[in-house]
């Protein structure tokens, strides 16, 4: 009787689903991580005063920036530069990656150049672009494109070479014109790689744009951060950086995340 009752209890008691448990663990982990960061920040703001601002001062500074017109002017300028660099690097990198992946002669020519470009530290591109083109918009744009495109190209090339060649045969046997086969068979196979490349390109672009602005531009978020640093206004440095990072994360998760969900809906 006791055994039977305990078996019934075992059978009937609700058990949390694996998915719910995973989600709970993730949420708890995130809360703990933010709390730890906050505790370290608070400790540092007490011990390394005045170079590390307190969270409270930083929040006040963030509020001030969010209500100032200057912040938005700089933000939109930086967003424009990021968009231009991101688009140029993604398009050039993807096109080059496809060409290298599809054609051995193109691969033989570009692969050594690509390997060299990947080995060059990003600041070198920035410095040389400024030396060659001055501190105008073109220098930043060229430097960012040169720094980011090889990474995009490398990711796309690997994906092109790892494509399902059986689908190429299928399109040839059914006499699907090669331009149509490119769009309906090859490009969709590259979508996961293109999305990875886009994420990478975006992440690298916005970080480098800030560096380029800090080094060689009179305006933009990077210039604002550097200006505040020169005036030793550390709470403004941290406040602008946090606001910008949050916005970039929102864009990455919101726009690229949604795009990924839409483009890969056939997998669900």
């Amino acid at each position, binding site marked *: 009787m006791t055994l039977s009752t305990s078996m019934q209890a075992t059978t009937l008691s609700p058990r949390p689903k694996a998915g719910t448990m995973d989600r709970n663990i993730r949420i708890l982990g995130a809360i703990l991580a933010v709390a730890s960061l906050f505790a370290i920040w608070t400790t540092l703001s007490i011990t390394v005063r005045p170079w590390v601002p307190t969270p409270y001062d930083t929040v006040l500074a963030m509020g001030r920036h969010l209500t100032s017109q200057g912040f938005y002017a700089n933000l939109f300028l930086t967003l424009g530069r990021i968009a231009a660099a991101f688009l140029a690097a993604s398009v050039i990198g993807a096109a080059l990656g496809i060409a290298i992946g599809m054609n051995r002669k193109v691969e033989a020519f570009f692969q050594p150049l690509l390997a060299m470009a990947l080995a060059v530290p990003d600041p070198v591109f920035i410095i040389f672009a400024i030396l060659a083109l001055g501190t105008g918009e073109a220098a930043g744009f060229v430097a960012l494109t040169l720094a980011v495109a090889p990474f995009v190209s490398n990711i796309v090339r690997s994906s092109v070479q790892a494509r*399902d060649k*059986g*689908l190429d*045969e*299928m399109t*040839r*046997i*059914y*006499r*699907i*014109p090669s331009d*149509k086969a490119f769009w*309906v*068979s090859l490009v*969709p196979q590259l*979508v996961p790689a293109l999305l990875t490349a886009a994420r990478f390109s975006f992440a690298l672009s916005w970080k480098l744009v800030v560096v380029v602005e800090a080094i060689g531009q009179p305006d933009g978020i990077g210039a604002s951060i550097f200006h505040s640093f020169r005036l030793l206004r550390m709470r403004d440095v941290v406040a602008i950086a946090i606001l910008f990072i949050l916005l970039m994360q929102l864009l990455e998760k919101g726009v690229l995340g949604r795009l990924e969900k839409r483009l890969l809906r*056939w*997998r669900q």
Partner: protein
Amino acid sequence: MTGTSDTVLKVEGLQVSYGSIPAISSLDFEIKRGEFVAILGPSGCGKSSMLNVISGLLPPTRGVVEVDSRPLYDAGRHAPKLGYVFQAHRLLPWRTVKQNLELVLAASDVPRDQWEDNIDRLLDILHIGQFKNSWPMQLSGGQRQRVSIARALLVEPSYILMDEPLSTLDEVTARSLRQELSGIWARTGATIVFVTHSIREAVYLADRIIILTRGPSTVFENYHVPIARPRAYDDPRIAEVEADIIRRVEHAWGLDPIKQSEVA
């Protein structure tokens, strides 16, 4: 060998080499319109090379391949339409069943106003009408292979090549699909060239079996299956014919008794 008007595919003196390595030494055969022909050969005999040649993917090193009395290669815009059922389905997973079928129809001469009816008719014949708007990943292996068969039939091809299309399916699904394939062939009158490792499958499905030698291959025998249709897969006569073929290929394929049982 002289092709007659009802000859769909004529292969004459076909040789395929990869550099100095010969894959096919000399193949001669014909496929007549409406025939169901199985091609049987040991592993490494050059079946894949032969399929690549007669599907238009690989020009032969030497020899003639004609489809409907026209050379398969250098045919330009007169290139014949072929259907192909691959070992793996090779559907585009990011297109629905209907979109996959429309893709090959767009490249064929079938008028657009007939697409919908043709797709519906074939999906119904293959019992997958309800999956018309599904993604391939939502289908089972057998259902995907049915879509692949529908795709091959849709383009109204001169002939359909089937490269071990049932080898990746479980035996129950493969059995049901074999039966349906036999029925579809009877209903549509399609010309089918079916490559398989399974002698029993070849005997059950085909009118004629082209048996190849070990590679580099030649035709060992054109075997006419002496069993009337409809056939049952468990029919003892099929087992008898299967045993007869094994006896015939014993020396040509170099089979010892253990390997014979593997083939069976």
